[in-house]
């Protein structure tokens, strides 16, 4: 299991290859990568991601431990950036491995659902008109109900 919280950019492909090559038993690896996108109406200059340094890694590790236990994952990786990110940059990445693909997929979806709403990050969008905090979406909170 590996959790990385960092302001520096990271290479998702290198992270995926490292994760794949570390798997001794798992035949299935699922990854998710989140990319900064402009707003539908345009104008995003950059995104700022604030976090709670004393809590972040521990909160993510607890979510990872739950996912590993629940889906019998062989391994899991979470990388999450904070600080200033431009459009097109990769914000975060999750990877899971399991013997069968259904567990790897479910583990990755579980991690994403919980990271969205239970890991202490807050996104702010900065445009030429000012800055605004991204509101939590009801659909993200509702996504937790299925687990």
């Amino acid at each position: 299991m590996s959790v990385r919280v960092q302001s520096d950019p990271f290479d998702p492909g290198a992270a995926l290859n490292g994760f794949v090559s570390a798997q001794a038993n798992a035949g299935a690896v699922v990854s998710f990568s989140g990319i900064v996108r402009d707003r539908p109406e345009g104008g995003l200059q950059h995104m700022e991601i604030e976090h709670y340094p004393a809590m972040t890694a521990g909160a993510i590790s607890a979510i990872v431990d739950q996912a590993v236990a629940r889906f019998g994952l062989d391994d899991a990786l979470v990388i999450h950036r904070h600080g200033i990110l431009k459009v097109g940059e990769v914000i975060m990445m999750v990877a899971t491995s399991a013997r069968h693909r259904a567990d790897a997929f479910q583990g990755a979806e579980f991690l994403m659902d919980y990271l969205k709403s239970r890991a202490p990050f807050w996104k702010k969008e900065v445009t030429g008109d000012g800055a605004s905090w991204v509101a939590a979406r009801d659909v993200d909170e509702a996504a937790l109900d299925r687990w």
Partner: protein
Amino acid sequence: MIDVVYFAWVRERIGLPRETVDTDATTVAGLVAELSAREDRYAMAFSDLSALRVAVDQELTDFDAALDGVREVAFFPPMTGG
């Protein structure tokens, strides 16, 4: 003495990221009431608790959580990670 920390728009409304509070409150809700009585900026930040989340010693919890032996309380909006 409890460290109280604020994030995102809670931090911006209250105007500081962290302070140390000498409190008699026994629960998070009691601490919120004390802070809200101080100044408008606190009252405004805490005006709708359903829009807030709280962590005690870096664990998510509820507003009725006890403060016995607690060292740090954090207030923030719903998280938007991922």
